[in-house]
């Protein structure tokens, strides 16, 4: 089987919880992690006689998502009942939008190895989440706290072709939604979930292959892996002349494979019905424009600006802008700093690793990181010392300049002192010297390391390297025969 003979067509349905304080049709809290069934009422429990009352904030956030993704936001839309029986669905129908979704015809541009790609977004609609089944031995319990949490479903066009692309799309989508405050995007808490539709066909064929739906994947990595696995599986079936069955599958994280959930005879019939308990949703042009005006700078645009204004690397800018709080922090640091590149480096390579909170929250004030980058940039301390200082700042704040002076952490740039240390080092490591002389130039690294160790990491690395090279050239090794 040659994979080149096949191409995959992939579309994503992404569910994002909207960041509202209360649920979509009642005033219950949306806070995550409360004891089961403590955040529900007659409405979200579907008790007889209860009626939904639409949370306007959910509509606004959904419209903002649409505007951020270049969709047309409909001035008039409706809600519909999607009807099916399941214990987590209290009314036995989900209030969703079928015919007239809130947003349509948008797109999201993603960067791929092959350049920029525009991924179509066919629709965004609002709907309510269901409760959560908790299976334990011999019984199933239901928690309705999640029932009625507002969601948007973002349906992409089938414009994606690889697992990597799908994961990139999902990352970019998340960054946009989080930056707009539409969702907190916490995949581990289920506030962003992804269903994937994959089909595979032979290259050149017009007709789409039979698709598989993979439900509820909750990480970028798993989206990529699940799709790659599924493409291989489809291609293998097709190469053997077999048909791909119409199925719903799930991704098994342990084995890295997708496993069958249920075979679909045909598309499910949800008996959609216009929701008679809710009036149509109107959004006036002024309201839409007011929401558009509230949109923050979107991640891509911001990354471009950061590259322009601070001359940082494009990849760094993109990572910084994947989290609005992180980008805000960086700008606070960089604004008062003559060395934004160094600041970005310290932030991305050292600080970010220490605080994995989402959204990003720094234990080090922007002003301190700015000062640290300046000390580094001006050569007062070298990068080893800077990293150590940053680690100490994470544990507690202190005055940088005073500490550097007081603890003599400043970089050694006195040529006489350094020369002496270098010569001592050459004496100490004759093997490295002879290796170097015999053409193994990499041996200089161990000599450099030794100099650093002798100076408790304070030697100016550039000066050290220059001195090493000069002195090595002059240095005569005693020949040991």
């Amino acid at each position, binding site marked *: 089987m040659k994979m080149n003979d096949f191409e995959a067509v992939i579309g994503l349905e992404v569910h994002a919880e909207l960041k509202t304080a209360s649920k979509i049709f009642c005033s219950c809290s949306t806070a995550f992690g409360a004891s089961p069934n403590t955040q529900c009422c*007659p409405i979200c*429990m*579907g*008790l*007889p*006689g*209860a*009626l*939904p*009352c*639409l949370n306007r904030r959910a509509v606004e956030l959904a419209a903002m998502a649409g505007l951020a993704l270049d969709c047309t936001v409909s001035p008039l839309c409706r809600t519909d*009942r999607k*009807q099916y*029986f399941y*214990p987590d669905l*209290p*009314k*036995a*129908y989900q209030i969703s939008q079928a015919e007239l979704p809130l947003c349509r015809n948008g797109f999201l541009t993603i960067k791929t190895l092959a350049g920029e790609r525009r991924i179509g977004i066919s629709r965004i609609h609002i709907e309510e989440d269901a409760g959560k089944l908790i299976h334990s031995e011999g019984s199933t319990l*239901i928690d309705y706290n999640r029932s009625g949490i507002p969601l948007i479903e973002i349906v992409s066009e089938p414009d994606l072709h690889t697992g990597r692309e799908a994961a990139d799309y999902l990352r970019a989508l998340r960054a946009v939604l989080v930056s707009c405050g539409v969702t907190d995007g916490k995949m581990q808490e289920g506030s962003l979930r992804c269903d994937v539709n994959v089909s595979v066909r032979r290259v050149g064929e017009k007709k789409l292959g039979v698709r598989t739906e993979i439900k509820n994947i909750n990480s970028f990595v798993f989206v990529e892996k699940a799709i790659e696995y599924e493409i291989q599986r489809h291609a293998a079936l097709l190469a053997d002349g077999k048909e791909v069955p119409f199925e719903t599958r799930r991704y098994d994280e342990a084995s890295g494979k997708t496993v069958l959930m249920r075979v679909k005879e045909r598309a499910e*019939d949800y*008996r959609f*019905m216009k929701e*008679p*308990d*809710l*009036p149509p949703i109107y959004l006036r042009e002024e309201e839409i424009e007011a929401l558009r005006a509230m949109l923050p700078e979107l991640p891509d645009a911001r990354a471009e600006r950061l590259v322009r204004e601070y001359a940082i690397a494009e990849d760094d800018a993109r990572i910084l802008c994947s989290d609005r709080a992180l980008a805000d922090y960086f700008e606070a640091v960089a604004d008062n700093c003559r060395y934004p590149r160094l600041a970005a480096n310290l932030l991305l390579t050292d600080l970010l690793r220490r605080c994995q909170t989402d959204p990003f929250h720094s234990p080090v004030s922007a002003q301190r990181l700015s000062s640290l980058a300046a000390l580094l940039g001006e050569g007062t301390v070298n990068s080893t010392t800077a990293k150590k200082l940053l680690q100490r700042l994470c544990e507690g704040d202190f005055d940088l300049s005073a500490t550097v002076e007081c603890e003599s952490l400043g970089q050694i740039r006195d040529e006489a002192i350094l020369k002496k240390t270098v010569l001592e080092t050459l004496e100490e490591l004759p093997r490295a010297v002879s290796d170097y002389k015999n053409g193994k130039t990499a041996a200089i690294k161990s000599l450099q390391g030794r100099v650093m160790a002798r100076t408790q990491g304070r030697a100016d690395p550039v000066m050290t390297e220059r001195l090493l090279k000069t002195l090595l050239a002059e240095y005569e090794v005693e020949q040991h025969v």
Partner: protein
Amino acid sequence: MSEMIKRSLAEHRRALDGGEYTSVELTRAYLDEIDRREGVVGAYLTLNAEAALKSATEADARISKGVARGALDGIPYALKDNFCTKGLRTTCASKMLEHFIPPYDASVVTRLNDAGAILLGKLNMDEFAMGSATETSALGVTRNPIDPDRVPGGSSGGSAAAVAAYEAAFSLGSDTGGSVRQPAAFCGVLGMKPTYGAISRYGMIAMASSLDCVGLVTHTADDCGAVLSCLMGVDERDTTTVAHPDPSFKSMKKDAPLRIAVVRELLEDEAVSLEVRNSTEEAIGLLRECGFEIGEVSLPSPDAALAAYCVISAAEAASNLARYDGIRFGHCAATEKELLSLYAKGRSEGFGSEVKRRILFGTYMMTEDKRVLYYDRALEARARIRERMLQILKQYDMILTPTTPTSAFRTGGSLTPMQRRRADLCAIYASLSGLPALSVPFGHDKDGLPLAIQLIGAHFCEGLLLQTAKLFEEVR
């Protein structure tokens, strides 16, 4: 029987405020009458006697201090058993909800509580409001107080019977396709279905959401106006409610003569009995004498209206009743191990045959290939009917029809389901159009059973309907 229970709400108000009798005495009088007549009438499913007397004591305290809450303070009433009452069993006359105790009050119940009205109990009905004789109730039999061999009508049969038998000063029912107007007509009392959206549906257990209205049963037009005033208005819990442009019904008197449209097709439909036709003609004659202008209009085919009503109400009912799965409340086939059999067995045991019939019918109508054929066409027919009704009500102030094609029929379910559907004929036009409609008692048939006419007005013209009903009261 104590005479006080026959008085109007305004007379009760005067007597209570003037110290002629207390709310406790009045409540006891109604409870005594319930005691005396329930053996035959059977209007109530659940009595709230103890709580009612406690509320009456509180009302008396307010009244004696001169801080009564208005027209309804201290006046006893009853509710169809599909209004949720906090802590008080609410069954929809179904095995499914036989032991259901709601944790909240319907918005209308809250309003009546706040107004100081005294809840006597919960009234029998057709199961989940599906039926027109109260004979589909799984929990009790209600008889027509005028003639116990006759049905009280339905689905709000208990509501009409309780008021007709003086077992409550007024009652609330629900009207989806005549469910308040028809039993009111059968029992000889006034039945009002207000404009859709005029009264909150929150807490009224849904049958067909786009048609369901809170309905009122009273003895007089003034009584109806007083209760209506208390209940109408925007409720944030029901976003289909709208503000009533004329909440005190003041602006309805006109200088020009009022114009009444008579629908010939409805008067001459084969289902309409001769006595009903004659009585309606008599009512028309009376109005003409009083200076009304009478004209004749035509409506889209009754068959289309009946079909549209059947399909839409069943489709919405099937959807609304899907939540009775036994998981969170209601009857549960708890011994079943598989989810599907838990649903199937629980619902088979909990629902009666009429409810099942409509759920099956409504579900079928919504399946992928049938939906376009039936449901979508029913919606189109509904839009045409509504358009035509509004067009007529631009030229006329009211439409007059009989409320029902016949007087109350005999007990024992002699009618086929399709015949029973046909009995909704005159009622459904107002329901499909969201218009206010009032059933006014007028005349009797040869067996002495009450007959009634129906007045349909433009949206929010309840005042005009009540004003015209008063005219009939005066000549009666």
